[in-house]
């Protein structure tokens, strides 16, 4: 049986930011800004969400020529369900545009 734990405010913010993206792919830096979490917090969350099947990760081609491919992320169906079950806590709502 899978043990369920209450998600941290940061995890909720990351999930909410991905839901807000409407199922589109997000890069790490963009996601950290949308969710208002620093990279040091974001990546451990992404690693675990991906390992648990809540997140898809893939290399996406660059949008500008001369740039290398970047890792991008979007929620799986299970991830979307997890996001719905764990909305952001009011005071910890995503702060769009906050520097990571």
């Amino acid at each position: 049986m899978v043990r369920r734990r209450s998600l941290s405010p940061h995890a909720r913010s990351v999930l909410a930011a991905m839901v807000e993206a409407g199922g589109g792919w997000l890069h790490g830096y963009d996601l950290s800004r949308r969710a208002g979490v620093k990279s040091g917090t974001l990546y451990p969350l992404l690693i675990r969400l991906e390992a648990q099947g809540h997140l898809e990760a893939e290399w996406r081609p660059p949008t500008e020529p001369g740039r290398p491919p970047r890792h991008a992320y979007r929620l799986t169906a299970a991830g979307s369900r997890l996001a719905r079950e764990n909305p952001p806590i009011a005071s910890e709502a995503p702060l769009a545009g906050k520097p990571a």
Partner: protein
Amino acid sequence: MTRRLAIVVAELAARLLPSPTRAWGLAMTREAASIDHAGAALRFALGCLGCALREAALFQLLRPVRGAQSSSSETPDVIDALRLHPRALTGLCAVIATGLGLAYLTFAGAPAFYLVGNAVALVLGFLIVGLLMATGGVGERTLGTVAVALGALLVATALFGTHADGATRWFTLFGVSTQPSLMLVPPLVMIFARTRGTLATCGMALAALALAMQPDRAMAAALTAAAGALALVRPDRRTLTVLALAVVGLATTVLRPDALPAVPFVDRVFYTAFAAHPLAGIAVFAGVVVMMVPPVAGWTSDPANRPVHAAFGALWLVIIAAAALGNYPTPVVGYGASAIVGYVVALLGLPRRSSAAITRPSAVGEKTVRQDGDLRAGAAVAG
């Protein structure tokens, strides 16, 4: 410049990540490289470095739990490689501990030249190590001669050194006051721990005599602790003789008065650092913990060379304890070049590769690994 630094930091983070999550390191590096604003890229990379350090620490802590689940073909991680290379690990810990010391001095408001002095000492220590390694291997007899010379220098300090408040344990060189015992005793102990030769025994005897003459209670206790640790791990006639002499020397220092006042940023640092600034206190305590990482790692992962790791660990543990208990210099993290040089140079007495590397050749990415930790056959300290 900032952008380049950001990428270097992100690449370091990628290398530190444990093998199961290493693929994420490339994602971090590419992401940091794609951020337009250099300052934001550096902040992003520093966050990634923090993440990598936590993941690496977690990976190591959970290693026993994973146990047999670990595959022998698992890609080695940086921490694993360092554990198998005691000298490299000690060098890295010297850099980290000195860096934390610089942080302490900064937060505590020490004069700028104190910071420069410690930084220069670190560079000097590595220069000495580099020069000694470049000279190639030397035999046990040469090492023994060096040990006697080190012991004689300690006696010379007691006879001709700078005198203050009833103690003669300093030497002024080019206007800079140094404490030779902190520089010379660590390498001397390491030579004795590895060779156990007659000359090295004489060097240790001279050191015990010199520390009693100076008097230097802290270093006499450290010498006794190192000899005691060696006697526990490897009891033999010469080690027991050195232990007996060290105990007599320590007893002499205890009987003699030692009323030196505390020097700011050098002594009583454990007590004053937190009062100066919380981050200063954290830096000091983290620094001394880092200093003790190499002997603990060596003891657990290098059973064939436990005597040298035990001697190194006991020596520095007691120097740290003395700094906590009395008016004695706080090594490496407090202001003082001598301990930094002593800590760095002493790493030459540690094996380049641990004995565990022999049974795990793939763990360091090599087909075959030769143990060079045993000086009993006349191999070189600096080899």
